[in-house]
């Protein structure tokens, strides 16, 4: 069965969001299917991060609907939302590791309240080590985030996002601020994770290489609306100059 015919794991319909007189999202919609890597591209300030924050409930949209696994998160109570959030992993742009905690404590943190969510849970220590091993940083277990390089911090943050075995992962600018070699390592890691955990991924990026390597589909977000949608090949060879402009290195 084609992915387009499947029920999406995440669906945004006609999302509007304003901050005062600044209309950031003006009717943005998307569908993310199981096992798909969907890339969102757009200029700085086009509302990409706002859109992702709406999905995880950090920002309330003004109108529209957000459905994750058939549940509308906008009308959901706090407890249900907290539980649903365990189905979503979120890699923040700046990693957002808790700087007063060790790597181990950072990874243990999401497990404090939601251990029971993981099937066949074998213990906190095992879960932490398995997640760190999947990003190749088992040796950093007792280090503080300040002792890690930017790329290592990003990988630890990814391990933390994976620890509850989410079905959907959001990547907010996963390669921004990293050198090309480390950026490639992160992209490779994202591909491995998708295969290993069978996750659906929503990736926000400016990085054309990242979009080319990882995307199944790309949506261009311009002025708060879906400007164009298609595969990397379709969009990069588009006859529309504004669309093509995104893919110039």
């Amino acid at each position, binding site marked *: 069965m084609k992915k387009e015919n499947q029920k999406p794991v995440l669906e945004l319909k006609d999302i509007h969001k304003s901050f005062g007189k600044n209309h950031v999202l003006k009717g943005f919609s998307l569908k993310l299917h199981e096992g798909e890597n969907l890339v969102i591209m757009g200029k700085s300030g086009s509302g990409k991060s706002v859109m992702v*924050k709406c999905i*995880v*409930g*950090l920002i309330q949209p003004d109108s529209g609907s957000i459905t994750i696994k058939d549940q509308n998160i906008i009308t959901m109570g*706090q407890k249900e939302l*907290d*539980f649903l*959030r*365990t189905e*979503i992993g*979120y890699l*923040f*742009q*700046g990693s*957002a*590791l*808790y*700087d*007063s905690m060790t790597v181990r404590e950072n990874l243990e*943190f*999401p497990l*404090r*309240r*939601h251990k029971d969510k993981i099937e066949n849970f074998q213990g906190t220590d095992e879960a932490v080590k398995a997640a760190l091993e999947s990003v190749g940083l088992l040796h950093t277990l007792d280090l503080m985030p300040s002792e890690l390089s930017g790329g290592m911090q990003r990988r630890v943050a990814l391990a*933390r996002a994976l620890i*509850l075995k989410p079905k959907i992962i959001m990547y907010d600018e996963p390669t921004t601020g990293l050198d090309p070699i480390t950026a490639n390592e992160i992209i490779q890691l994202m591909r491995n994770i998708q295969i290993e955990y069978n996750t659906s991924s929503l990736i926000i990026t400016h990085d054309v290489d990242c979009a080319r390597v990882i995307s199944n589909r790309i949506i261009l977000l311009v002025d708060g609306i879906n400007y164009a949608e298609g595969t990397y090949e379709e969009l990069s060879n588009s006859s529309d100059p504004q669309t093509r402009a995104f893919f110039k290195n």
Partner: protein
Amino acid sequence: MSRSTSFLDRSKSFFAEIGDMTLFAGRFFRELFSTPFEFKELIRQCYNMGIRSLFLVMVTGFILGLVFTLQSRPTLADLGAEAWMPSMISISIVREIGPVIIALICAGRIGSGIGAELGSMRVTEQIDAMEVSGTNPFKYLVVTRILAVTLMLPLLVIVGDAVALIGSAIIENLKGDVSYTLYFNKIFDALSFSDLLPATVKTVFFGFAIGLVGTYKGYNCAKGTVGVGEASNSAVVYTSMLLFIIDFIAVFVSDIFFEI
């Protein structure tokens, strides 16, 4: 015209902030009694705020006792009222000077620390990361910190007061040749329940104010790293003002109930 508009805007934002802070305090009380309780984090914060402030509080208290006694002694000696020294010092320190000075010191150390810590967590999206991981950051970060300062400040003030009285006794022993036993006997004779109780109760409110303002400023911090500095700075300024207001109300209420 523009000056009056600016004053009006500032007044509006001042009252809006008081309203926000009241809602923030209301949320604290709602979350305080809801499960799950973050005991481990509460104990960690009590240690951070209590034990780690102890040395500063003891040094401040000791110097306060020394200086206060040194400054008061000549005046009382001129009046031939040196015998009143222990009573005057102990009542002043226990009722007023000890709680206020130590609360101000703690507003500087604890309040600004909370403002800066939560502020930097906010701008680096660590608070958002907690929320996304299905943990209530208000309960984990705010409730535990406010509760920890509220519990620890009265204890710190009691220790600070005791050390201040020891400092005072040392000066009296050196300058007035008064024995320690006599000095402390006079102190305990002078102090009564009506001195200790209101002073201790008001430090609970002082602690709550330090925690509330520090967490409010940090939790709602914006504008990047500049915002962190502002959060830390304004936490101390607002708390210091609030401490004097609470002190005035506490003295006023104590006067009604205990006729001080």
